[in-house]
């Protein structure tokens, strides 16, 4: 494993930089004093890059993901999105950025139980008023190999199938960045591999057909992390390694 200074591993022009963290910190006030979850993080993420946030439980990975996606605001430091001070935007402005540029994949899939697989994929497309929403959703469900289960509800699908629907939902809006929180964490090894394959192959297809998609994924699975171009390793709220993997998702 190559250890590197957190500040030196990533470099690039400002125009290619999608996300930039400067002295980023997050703490929670408690009766016994502040509980620091993230402290003083400085790093960049370039457009089209695939980055894994790796670390043990409690390292602060999910909190960092939430901050990067604008789901929460840092208690210290700044986060810039395409050069814009993202953390200073209000909730609705951050939501507007998410609507335009962000896709999500969650560990527990977060499909709406009352909707069918197709309707779940349809939801973000409808929300932004896509004219061909239904056709698009069907296409993406086909890409993840579930066109025959389009009318099934999440409770009628296996964990792997549910995550595939979630992946179709995330890709359907063709976001600039995809955040994935432990995408294989709830799956067995075989299904986990399949999901990872699907995730990276779709990401590659996307890159080949237009602008490459940035992927930030949280995992504690070393193998999955190795498939990304870059690994940010966290422990106790700090980045203690930022390494390139040599993966071909460049």
């Amino acid at each position: 494993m190559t250890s590197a200074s957190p500040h030196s591993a990533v470099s690039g022009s400002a125009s290619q930089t999608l996300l930039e963290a400067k002295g980023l910190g997050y703490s929670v006030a408690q009766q016994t004093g502040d509980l620091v979850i993230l402290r003083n993080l400085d790093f960049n993420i370039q457009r089209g890059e695939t980055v894994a946030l790796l670390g043990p439980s409690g390292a602060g990975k999910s909190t960092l993901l939430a901050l990067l996606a604008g789901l929460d605001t840092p208690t210290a430091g700044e986060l810039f999105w395409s050069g814009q001070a993202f953390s200073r935007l209000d909730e609705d402005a951050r939501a507007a950025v998410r609507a335009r540029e962000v896709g999500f994949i969650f560990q527990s899939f977060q499909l709406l139980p009352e909707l069918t697989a197709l309707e779940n994929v349809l939801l973000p497309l409808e929300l932004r008023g896509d004219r061909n929403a239904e056709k698009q959703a069907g296409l993406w469900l086909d890409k993840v190999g579930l066109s025959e289960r389009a009318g099934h509800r999440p409770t009628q699908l296996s964990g792997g199938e549910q995550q595939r629907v979630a992946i179709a939902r995330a890709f359907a809006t063709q976001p600039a960045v995809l955040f994935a929180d432990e995408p294989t964490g709830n799956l067995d090894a075989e299904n986990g591999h399949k999901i990872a394959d699907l995730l990276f192959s779709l990401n590659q297809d996307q890159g080949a057909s237009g602008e490459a998609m940035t992927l930030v994924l949280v995992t504690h699975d070393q193998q999955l992390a190795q498939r990304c171009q870059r690994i940010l390793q966290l422990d106790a709220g700090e980045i203690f390694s930022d390494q390139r993997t040599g993966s071909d998702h460049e």
Partner: protein
Amino acid sequence: MNDLRLAARLAWRGVKAGEYRVLLVALMLAVACATLLGVLGERMQGALDHEAARISGGDLVVSGREPADTDLQKHLSEQGLRWSQRVSLTTMAGLDDALLLISLTAVDDDYPLLGEVRLETPSGEVTTARAPEEGQIWLERGLALRLSAEPGDLIELGDQQLEFSAYLLETPDQSGGFASFSPRALVHLDSLQGSALLGPLSRARWNLGITGADEILDRLRRELPDRLDSNQRLRDMQEDRPGVARALEEGRRYLGMAGLIAVLLASLAVALASQRQARRQAKEVALLRCLGQSRARVRRLFLLQLFWLGLAAGLLGGLVGYLAHLGLVELLSPLLPLTLPAPSIWPLVAAVLLALWLLLGFSLAPLLSLAQVSPLAVLQSRPWKLSGSGLLSYGLAGVATLGLGYWLSGDLLLTLWTLAGLVVAGFVVAALGWVLIRLLMTRLQQFPWRWRQGLRRLGRNPGETLLQLSTFTLAFTAVLLVARGGDQLVGDWQEQLPEDMPSQFAVDIQPHEREDFIAFLDDRELEHSQLYPILRGRLTLINGEEAESQVPAASRNDNTLRRELNLTWSAELPGDNAVVEGHWWPELEEPDEGLLPISVESDMAANLGLELGDRVTFNLAGRAITTEVASIRTVNWESFNPNFYVIFPPEVLEDQPHTFLSSFVMPEDEAGFMRAISREFPGVAFLDVRAILAQAEGILRQLSLGVQYLLGFVLLAGFLVTWALMMASLDARQREQALLKVMGAQRASLAGRQFAEFLLLGGLAGILAAILGETLYSLLAQQLFNLTWEPAPLFWILPPLIGALLLAGFAHLALRGSLNEAPHKLLHRLS
């Protein structure tokens, strides 16, 4: 516009997936009940107005001692209005040596303006007709019987002889049901022209009925009083409302109460379902926020979904309510006028508005709290806890319920009291329930294991337990109350009737006939009351001032002030009376200024605000007599004996024109007896009390049926509340079940524990509902219906049993699936 469509799609998907099932059904039920009552109320009101106009003989009626002048008639014709002149008088009819006092109506060719006359021809055919031809007379069957008249006979009316050509069955201007005091006959106006019956000394009353377009009638209503002579007046339609109108309105109020209970219960189910819906949607909101939707848009999308749900529930509920009202109309048809006006579109519009109003009141607060859900919630595995909506939630629900109650009852104070009562009852039930549960908990070791577990669970979640207990108890109480009302009222009412009740009243007995009349009854050994003198007088002044200005505002239009009252005198206090204030004659001191003392019935005194010592002036046949209130009496009207509002002392009014009244029990040979007594006392009129009682019982029986019909809705609403309550805690219970299973709990023991818990809860609610229900019923029976409360053992035994089995059954149905499901699958599904 896009969001409106998108929200419609989202709402439809939720409906398809069964997400909104309880909410929608509860909403539809509330709307259906309200629509049912709304449509029925509107149509009954319309029918009563139409009835009143029909009985009056026109939408407007000019009444006087002389016929309306031709100028007025010409003016009406020019305005495009239809009119008809009729005259009514009491006169003697004769055939051979038989003579009888009859109520005669003479009509013109345009009679009747509204409705129709029903006849039976000599050949026995029942037909409808207008006015009889000149020279003919139509007689009621009873009148023909008492005169021993056959069709074709010539009946003498004063100096006229008219041919009896048909039996008169019904005229529109007959207030239906109650028999008139004097038997009736109908002739053409031309038959009486020039007769002494309409001469200057006649006591005939002329009525000009007018009908036409509403706007012309409204204008005429304003300008007519200026055109009338001093002896003419424009009659108020309310005076001629049918006798059953009051009973119908009372009945509608009672049905309305049962309906209000159903609507309130269904609203409660809406509230419970909304709370659960909001909890379940927290993750969905978090996801939408993750997907970049602003708070405002999330709020808008959910508001619009509510709008669509409200619209759908409003329209469907409105339709169900409309169809259900047809059933109720059919059920109440013996009580209702023959033709009900067509319903308007308003109840349907109101149905949609009501659905939206209920959603606004019960779902808006949880929905607004949803918008506070952070997108971070998607990253958290625990369910999102909604907060910050308490005050708003209760406030909006309170306003919605108040508005609803006011809309349905039309009485804000009554609604406020009802709601305050419900809240207090809820707290009392919760407190009582808690004491009982704590009491059982102290004896915990004496119970078998499963019961112990069930009890422990009840005691461990006091908030949830007491909410369920008080809600279910109140719902159950409502159902019991309606069931008790529907089932028992007729029986209780019949039991109240005295066994020695008279069947006939005889009125207009002249002073010279009194001894012969009593002898006539005594000879035939018929039970009868004493003879009561009757004087007619109008109450004009109270304490020297215009009576209307002295009475409470609510009583200004009281009939007591607008009509002549039946007054009497008596030395003895009548049997069914009791003096509650002041003294009866022998104990009275000499009255001031030589004023006559009077005794006033307590309800009348309360209505008119009369107190002991007040001076009341009566106009008795043109003579003003000022009296002083010397005593106030209660009267047992249910005895059906002759009773009076105002009684004078004896030996002071004997010189005033008066007649006598008596009551007696009819012998078996009714026809023969009536013929004989009519021959002997042709001027005496009879009133059949049994007909009135039969009609009163009919009304009560129909209302009771109506209440039982509504009981179906109340029951359904009660079930819905129970279901919604069960669903509210379903997710937590299922999670608990899964965990216990993982820890090795057997399916049977879990089922047993759950069964014990709900048996206890249901049983407890049943006991509390029986206590509350019987207390409320006894109050209602005594205060509203003047009935003595009798305990009904079934209503004490059944509620705890039904409550226990019902809740346990519901719990079994709700949790059956998860009991049988493998724990890992259950946990997977719940996550």
